[in-house]
């Protein structure tokens, strides 16, 4: 004897710092269907291109989301620079790469913490966030901001990092790597964590690719796709291989993010060695015209910034396709058939960033 009921999940829910609402159709303890509805943090910021000139709009682009803010700013700049044929100095591209990878470290640690909290493992949450402060300290020392950096501009970057600081950052990452290994060991090898994650929220390789999953969700289902392979910024000059897992479940998604942090450390250290001297910005004159889709890899996956100019100082259109919105359909698929008690873990496993998702 079973009866269908609908359980609302959110918007104000203890497991998520941000509001999302799901209607869960439940039969006994099984979720039959999940219907997300969003809009709680929708601001309509894409329309602000009419109010702000294109160099000022970087500040808005950065504030699409407070977790992946640097990469949003950098990708927007990349899009406008391509439209205007701006030759960005090499050093600026390397600095953008270094800051992007620091953002990824801070975002992944933040996620690991929230994920641990979602599993009821509060101690691990605290430990992940303690470690994250190391990354934020370096970001703050070099850009002035902890979570919103504001260091990217059309034509380059606003601040340089001197050689001594670069060395200090690179050396600091050695100790950081050791502490990270202790943390990651718990996530990957602890038996209670494994039992919460293994075979939960399975998304097959075919579904992941066909339904538009991106980033760690796609790579955890065995597809080697990472927008950093496009070689934007300085990634073309650095050695890098996408991190892929075959498990297709929450555990695999956790493993991808955990292992990507080591890749980020390697990328930062390589960039610090290879960074050339030179100017950090060029003067940008003129007005953007034409259109371009700029793509970059956010901590949550591929982001697309579409810009369309109309020959004035204001862009005609800016559209962001953020990784979270494209990971929503795969999430709906993962939720179908799961147990009610696993819903928070599965929702968190796509690393939902609602600020990005709704703009």
């Amino acid at each position: 004897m079973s009866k269908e009921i609908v359980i609302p999940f959110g918007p104000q829910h203890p497991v998520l710092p941000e509001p999302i609402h799901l209607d869960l159709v439940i039969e006994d303890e099984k979720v039959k269907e999940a219907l997300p509805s969003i809009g709680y943090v929708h601001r309509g910021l894409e329309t602000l291109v009419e109010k702000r000139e294109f160099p000022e709009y970087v500040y808005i682009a950065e504030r699409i989301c407070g977790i992946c803010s640097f990469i949003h700013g950098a990708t927007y700049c990349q899009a406008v620079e391509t439209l205007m044929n701006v030759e960005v100095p090499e050093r600026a591209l390397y600095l953008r790469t270094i800051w992007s990878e620091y953002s990824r470290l801070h975002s992944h640690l933040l996620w690991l913490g929230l994920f641990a909290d979602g599993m009821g493992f509060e101690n691990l949450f605290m430990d992940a966030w303690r470690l994250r402060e190391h990354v934020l300290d370096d970001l703050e020392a070099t850009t002035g901001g902890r979570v919103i950096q504001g260091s990217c501009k059309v034509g380059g970057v606003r601040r340089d990092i001197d050689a001594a600081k670069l060395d200090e950052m690179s050396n600091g990452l050695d100790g950081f790597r050791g502490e990270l290994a202790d943390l990651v060991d718990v996530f990957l090898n602890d038996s209670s964590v494994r039992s919460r994650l293994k075979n939960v929220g399975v998304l097959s390789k075919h579904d992941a690719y066909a339904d538009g999953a991106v980033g760690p969700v796609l790579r955890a289902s065995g597809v080697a796709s990472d927008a950093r392979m496009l070689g934007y910024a300085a990634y073309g000059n650095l050695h890098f291989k996408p991190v892929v897992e075959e498990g297709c479940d929450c555990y695999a998604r956790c493993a991808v993010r955990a292992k990507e942090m080591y890749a980020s450390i390697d990328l930062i250290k390589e960039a610090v060695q290879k960074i050339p001297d030179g100017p950090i910005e060029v003067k940008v004159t003129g007005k953007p015209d034409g259109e371009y889709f700029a793509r970059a890899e956010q901590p949550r996956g591929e982001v697309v910034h579409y810009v369309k100019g109309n020959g004035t100082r204001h862009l005609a259109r800016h559209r962001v396709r953020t990784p979270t919105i494209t990971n929503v359909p795969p999430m709906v698929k993962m939720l179908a058939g799961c147990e009610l008690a696993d819903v928070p873990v599965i929702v968190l496993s796509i690393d939902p960033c609602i600020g990005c998702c709704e703009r």
Partner: protein
Amino acid sequence: MKEEEEPITTIAPDDLLDKVRAYDDAGFRLVQISCTKIEETFEITYCFDQDYRLDSLRLHVPIGTTIPSISGIYWGAFIYENEMHDFFGVEVAGINVDYKGNLLKTAKKYPFSNVTFRGEVTCRKK
């Protein structure tokens, strides 16, 4: 800055489903669907990716035209099609998960089809 080739093919709305099916058969994944309002027409762009190559299909449709949904081919397309409907008022026929305008609840209907800013129109009472 190095510019990658991003070919955009303009097609007629009637050909949409066939062309999209061809991309699916060739193994492309759907990257995104976006909409831009240019005067009295909507410019709708469908982007596909395979091996880091971005290919796009483009429709130009007058306001008020109903376009077919591609969610029968790319299941996940419903999120973009509902979003496009809620932002611009583009009518999409046959979406597999049709929110009927309830995916994003906004302060005014179809905000991107007639952009206004706060303070320019009378606010609702507090």
